């Protein structure tokens, strides 16, 4: 289904859309307050951009440096060309360690690779331990936001889910009670786990260490209790030096939620005595994205979600309308690189207002890339007949000023004079759920000419 079709499903519940819109705008607002406290924030963004751009231009060298240092630290490094190989490596490590129960902290990469169903089919128990991720896992849904996975669910839905799956008492959606019950339920899972899986926020070439950021402490509870820790990362998570963490940790949480830093910024380097640590480095289309000069900056992304929180389309269409692991503006420039046909409607799910680029902590030109994907998609994938025709007609009208003027006159007159039933009739998508403005009597051109004429008169 196209983005607009999926969005119209989300849009059926208007109250929920309103809540979703406002809740995310509130997060955007918290981000603004937080970044305005930082002196020279724009310079910090420039550094984030510059370090990532440099990293990509030397990525193979840094990956090798990272691998060598991680090996020295006693960490085993694995390489996966695609999702399938990633899943096979995880399974192999688990089998070698006779692990049956796995706790997972948030990792968009394992979502991208569809790891959970793969492991479950092998008879393993995989428990997502981030509260939002656990909620969507119980609901058998994918996350709808990369930082706030269950933002599309209200408290009453969570209440019902927990009653069904965790045996909680009805509580009218009390978040305090529900979180407390989730803590008890997941504490048991942490204690019993045979292996812990985490994502990676930053992997440092210079030290071979990696950093995982959480607010709940779930990555640490899993990784320090289980005998085996598997960390999965895309190739682009590399940063050259440890001092660069000073830049990225200042950018990440402020952009994501407005916090000055996440509660836990955990620096893993060597396994604890008697324990094992594995890192899986995954390509899965990233090296191909690197080959595209117009789109390679999308690999700067540090997964803060700021572009989603600010996007007028995302806020009103919900994360599931993108039908991709990474939704929102950044997802709309990453996904077409993986499958142009499947994701061909995503770059059109934007007003091109540019707000996403303005808030991006690593200055990805998201809206410019959305526009560039549109150019490619209209050439390479079949477009609906009406859209194609209307674009052709518009093109020819805009090409001839006299024609444009005549059409403008007719349109202004129509908007003033025709009955609403006609203006808002079915073929006019703009008249859906909104009234069009009254047509002004004169065009901008007329207004400007009159103004100039009056000026000379007054002189």
């Amino acid at each position: 289904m196209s983005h607009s079709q999926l969005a119209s499903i989300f849009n059926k519940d208007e109250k929920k859309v309103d809540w979703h819109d406002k809740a995310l705008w509130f997060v955007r607002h918290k981000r603004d307050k937080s970044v305005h406290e930082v002196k020279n924030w724009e310079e910090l963004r420039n550094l984030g951009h510059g370090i990532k751009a440099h990293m990509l231009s030397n990525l193979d060298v840094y990956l090798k440096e990272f691998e060598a240092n991680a090996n020295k630290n006693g960490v085993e490094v694995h390489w996966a060309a695609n999702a399938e190989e990633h899943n096979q490596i995880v399974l192999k490590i688990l089998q070698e360690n006779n692990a049956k129960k796995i706790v997972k902290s948030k990792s968009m990469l394992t979502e991208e690779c569809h790891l959970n169903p793969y492991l479950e089919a092998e008879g393993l128990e995989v428990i997502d331990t981030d509260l939002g991720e656990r909620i969507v896992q119980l609901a058998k849904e994918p996350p709808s936001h990369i930082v706030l996975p269950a933002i599309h669910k209200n408290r009453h839905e969570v209440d019902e889910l927990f009653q069904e799956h965790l045996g909680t008492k009805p509580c009218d959606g009390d978040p305090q009670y529900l979180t407390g019950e989730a803590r008890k339920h997941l504490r048991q899972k942490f204690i019993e786990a045979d292996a812990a899986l985490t994502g990676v926020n930053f992997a440092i070439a210079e030290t071979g260490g990696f950093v995982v950021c959480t607010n709940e402490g779930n990555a640490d509870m899993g990784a320090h209790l289980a005998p085996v820790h598997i960390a999965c990362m895309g190739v682009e998570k590399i940063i050259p030096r440890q001092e660069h963490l000073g830049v990225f940790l200042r950018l990440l949480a402020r952009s994501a939620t407005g916090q000055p830093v996440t509660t836990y910024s955990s620096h893993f380097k060597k396994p604890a005595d008697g324990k094992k640590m594995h890192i899986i480095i995954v390509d899965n289309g990233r090296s191909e994205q690197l080959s595209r000069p117009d789109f390679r900056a999308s690999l700067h992304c540090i997964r803060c979600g700021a572009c989603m929180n600010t996007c007028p389309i995302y806020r009103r269409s919900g994360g599931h309308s993108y039908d991709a692991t990474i939704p929102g503006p950044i997802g709309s420039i990453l996904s077409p690189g993986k499958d142009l046909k499947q994701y061909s409607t995503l770059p059109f799910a934007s007003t091109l207002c540019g707000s996403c680029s303005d808030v991006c902590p690593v200055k990805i030109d998201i809206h410019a890339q959305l526009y560039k994907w549109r150019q490619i998609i209209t050439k390479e994938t079949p477009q609906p007949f009406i859209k194609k025709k209307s674009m052709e007609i518009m093109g020819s009208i805009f090409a001839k000023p006299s024609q444009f003027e005549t059409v403008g006159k007719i349109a202004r007159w129509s908007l003033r004079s025709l009955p609403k039933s006609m203006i808002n009739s079915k073929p006019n998508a703009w008249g859906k759920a909104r009234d069009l403005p009254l047509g002004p009597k004169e065009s901008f051109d007329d207004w400007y000419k009159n103004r100039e004429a009056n000026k000379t008169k007054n002189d």
Partner: protein
Amino acid sequence: MSSRDHILNRINANKPELLTLPNIDASIFDAGLNVMAEFIKKVEVVGGNVLETTSNDAVISKVETIFPDAQIKYSTIAGTEAFNTLDLTTIKKSQDLEDLDILIIESDLAVAENGAVWVSDKQLPLRVLPFITKHLVLVVSKENVVPYMHQAYEKLSDTSGFGVFIAGPSKTADIEQSLVIGAHGALSLTIFVK
């Protein structure tokens, strides 16, 4: 070809020309903070409490008045062994720490701009301790509080095998964006500054 070589070759073929690595000039971010005032403010913002203290003994007696019902207690700071009800040498596996009520650790680095306190293998006999405890108490000296993360990493040449910046107690807002303190990690964080 192995996947490793395949990936590295493709990246080598597809990467752009080498771009220069920007230098970090930390001085441009210096807003002239009152370091201690900012630290206290930010710890409160992230959900923790800050108390001033003069000695390790004073920390212990204050902790005992804040948490009178605590049963299982452990401290790693010098001269407070009598406080401990737990003998780590008898702990066979980290899972046995599940009922730990209070953990007190001394840190040698904290950051004013975000209230984060650094704890690493240097202070942690077991890595899970600051996460599994119900209540976490951290002790830090004033002279070890730096203004920004940039200065923190200047001091952190070695992050040891494991280290973590802790900013406040564990928290979540995953249910309708309502902030709840106490997710999987500590339910409260108290920081003593000496």
